[in-house]
């Protein structure tokens, strides 16, 4: 098998680079990074995130002399494909992808195929402040050990955003959601299941309804998939006729779904950003009557990372950017709902009082959930569940 040999060779090459990265002094890395250009492949479907990356580009340019270019993706898989194509063409160095906004299945795919550079996170000075104990998703990405092959930068957790003018008693579980939809037909939708948010909507239902939720932490098998997902499909079959367009048409992604709420086509949406409502009201993307609700038993949450492909041309600058994203000032800026509104991956206990104050001084909003309301973060199931759910959904509902 030539491919496997190739993969092994590439893995070896990546390993040798990794060793050198671990041994390198951070100052050397920063010195080498100066003047380099980082092609940051990042999903570009959200204006606020795009603006944040623009801001980050200015900052790293000013402070480190690194040119950060946002390569805008419709789907993170495009970047994975690109690295695969480069490997296929034998370009094992000088690759065009320097940094990828990644997690879950894409991370698993790249890690399995040895397409990643690392481990590198221990070399980043700011990594020491990352919460690795209570925010388990910072070290376990969709049940896959991160092993230092990707560096966290933002958190996500399922919440529901609703129009407070039209919804007075928002549902607090997927069962209540079904009841609400029956009373309000056509006023709820979810992103396409090919999209991570749409798939997560189903995973939330899966976790709440599965007879044995613990099984979700292990890969799905032909034997257990049908039994564990059966209650979820029953629930979805009951819900689907009451969805917007009877579920026959779905928004492609989260922002498209938000546009529907803003256009008055739906009353409630699922979001992966607890600050979605506050951020969107501030940006004029949602009416200021929107509020946020979190399901009572907890909701699925995960961490977004940045990873460096094995053949990246500018690994040093990519590491400098990864470190910059973890600096407390950067994280506080990201958490400000006027900017991006992403809850931090850092551990407040590891911050200095000055660093902590940056977070305390952030503006408040009635659309923002409190930490208590956010409740428990449920760990993501193994990626195989998502893949299988997406395939099964396609089989059931694509006609």
């Amino acid at each position: 098998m030539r491919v496997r040999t190739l993969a092994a060779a590439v893995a070896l090459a990546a390993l040798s680079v990794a060793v050198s990265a671990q041994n390198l002094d951070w100052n050397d890395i920063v010195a080498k990074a100066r003047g380099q250009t980082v092609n940051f492949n990042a999903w570009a479907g959200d204006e606020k995130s795009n603006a944040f990356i623009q801001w980050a580009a200015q900052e790293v340019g000013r402070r480190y002399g690194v040119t950060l270019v946002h390569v805008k993706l419709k789907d993170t898989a495009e970047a994975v494909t690109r690295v695969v194509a480069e490997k296929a063409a034998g370009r094992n160095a000088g690759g065009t992808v320097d940094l990828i906004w990644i997690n879950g299945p894409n991370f698993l795919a790249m890690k399995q195929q040895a397409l990643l550079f690392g481990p590198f996170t221990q070399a980043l000075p700011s990594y020491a402040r990352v919460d690795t104990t209570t925010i388990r998703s910072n070290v376990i990405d969709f049940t896959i050990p991160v092993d230092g092959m990707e560096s966290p930068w933002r958190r996500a957790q399922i919440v529901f955003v609703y129009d407070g003018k039209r919804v007075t008693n928002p549902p607090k579980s997927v069962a209540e959601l079904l009841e609400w939809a029956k009373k309000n037909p056509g006023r709820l939708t979810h992103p396409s299941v090919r999209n991570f948010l749409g798939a997560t909507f189903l995973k939330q239902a899966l976790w709440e309804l599965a007879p044995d939720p613990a099984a979700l932490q292990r890969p799905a098998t032909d034997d257990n998939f049908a039994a564990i997902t059966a209650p979820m499909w029953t629930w979805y079959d009951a819900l689907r006729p009451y969805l917007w367009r009877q579920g026959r048409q779905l928004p492609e992604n989260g922002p498209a779904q938000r546009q529907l709420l803003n256009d008055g086509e739906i009353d409630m949406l699922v979001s992966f950003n607890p600050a979605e409502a506050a951020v969107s009201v501030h940006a004029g993307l949602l009416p200021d009557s929107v509020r946020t609700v979190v399901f009572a038993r907890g909701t699925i949450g995960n961490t977004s990372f940045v990873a460096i492909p094995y053949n990246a041309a500018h690994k040093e600058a990519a590491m400098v950017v990864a470190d910059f994203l973890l600096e407390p000032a950067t994280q506080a800026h990201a958490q400000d709902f006027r900017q991006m509104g992403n809850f931090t991956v850092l551990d407040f206990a590891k911050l200095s009082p000055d660093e902590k104050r940056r977070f305390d001084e952030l503006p408040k909003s009635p659309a923002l959930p409190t930490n208590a309301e956010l409740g428990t973060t449920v760990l993501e199931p193994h990626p195989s569940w998502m893949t299988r759910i997406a395939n099964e959904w396609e089989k059931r509902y694509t006609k």
Partner: protein
Amino acid sequence: MSMVRRPGVLRLAPALTVGILLLPIAAGLVGTLLPAFGYLPAIGGRTFNLDGWRRLADYPGFGTSVAITIGTGVLTSALAVILAFGCCASLHDRPWMRRLGAWVAPILSTPHSAIALGLAFLLAPSGWIARALSPWLTGWILPPDVATVGDPAGVALVLGLLLKEVPYLILMIVGALNQVQARAHLAIARALGYGPAEAWLKAILPQIYPQIRLPIYAVIAFSLSVVDVALILGPSNPPPLAVLAVRWFSDADIQFYFPAAAAAILLLLLVIGIIAAWRGFERCAMLVGRRWIARGGRGGIATTAATMATLLFGVTFALSVLAIAGMAVWSVADQWRFPDALPQAWSLANWMRRFDGLAGPAWVTVVVGALATGVALCLVLACLENESRGHRRPGAAALWILYVPLLVPQVAFLFGAQVLLVRMNLDGTLAAVVWAHLIFVLPYLFLSLADPWRAFDPRYAQTAASLGASRMRVFFAVKLPILLRPVLIAGAVAFAVSVGQYLATVFAGNGRVATLTTEAVTLAAGADRRVIGAYAVAQTLFPLIAYVGAVLLPALLFAHRRGLRGHQ
């Protein structure tokens, strides 16, 4: 450059042009055909097999996807042809008919995706039309739950394609009319008692059809294989075949390359099959039409039908204008919710804040467009000049070669071409994008420039030569100034084609070369409509500026030379 070498260089121009066109297409087709049958060693496909085809056929929505592709493609083509014929039949005797080209040109130069984005907002249940009529007429406080965009049958997609394909065909017909003695034949037909539309359909259409056959085939191929418009207006579960292929080509699971390549090849076969079927239909229509003409009936329904077609074209034209207008309003809106007909609050902040974001892609758009147009212009002028220096005029085969890029579905060769670019270490470079654009820019430029160039009165050149001017001098001092207007207009057309390229930019640019069009389509998936509006307006503006410049420049340059201000 010495006088001795120049003719030799010129003689190479046609071969070079054909090479630039066909090389990437041929290589790309091979690069798609092999993986379709399982061969792509780089990702483990070392034996030929039918797995890709099997996976394609096993896709749950496969049958529907093929049906949507054929249905929307054939319906769009047929409607576009009927509307264009009807429109020309009923408007041909209007004095402003000759100016119709000038009217539809701005619509034609607007990228498909910009119009599609605008149309999506126009038609949505919460869109502009519904907002304008609610609640005073419709009684809607909330938008109704009806699929008017992205509907499973693809009606919105057909409409979106018609907005651009009808003007395109009309322009082609107007061009073809210059090649026949339309006026004289119409006068005879009218004298024989045929109504105006009837006279056109019976006396003119049969004469010009051979000349618009290839443009019609291009419309068929485009409608079947369009990606950007389908992403914005088409159904998504399942999508048309071209969108499915692109979706799979960019799937994280590389094993999807195989069914993606199979889907792309199937699309190519569908295009070939439907063009062949159309060709068969032409023969039948010819037989029936001949009998219809020979019967000599007067005052039939032809005139009514043509008037209907014209009205429908009027509707599509109005929709195009409104679509862009809607985007323009969004670009200066702050808050605009259903059912308000106009924004509650206005703001220029979208433009100010987005300036940095817009400036980069806008710059790339202009540079790529200018380079592609410049290179194409040099090649086309060299080909035409070579032709007019006595080498033989290219025949029908050459015309087909020019049309190859417009007839082969883009997905069928762009992926294969991307692998070629990666191997040449050219992927993601500006040069690669310019080359990819050149494939589509060249045919349009050649087709727009060839007729005026060939119509150039050779006596001007002969007079100049007899006064002792070299061929070079004749070209630059006599021919170019006289033909400046058509050259600039052809350039503007070419530039517009470049601005509108989506798939070619994505594949050749490896996603790293962002133009206004790639940005707009990426954002279309749901970002802030105010931002989409700004991009759509910018997308419309640049080709328009080029077009207006092409019209005004000769008038400014030759203000003191009436004969050169150009009305040819």
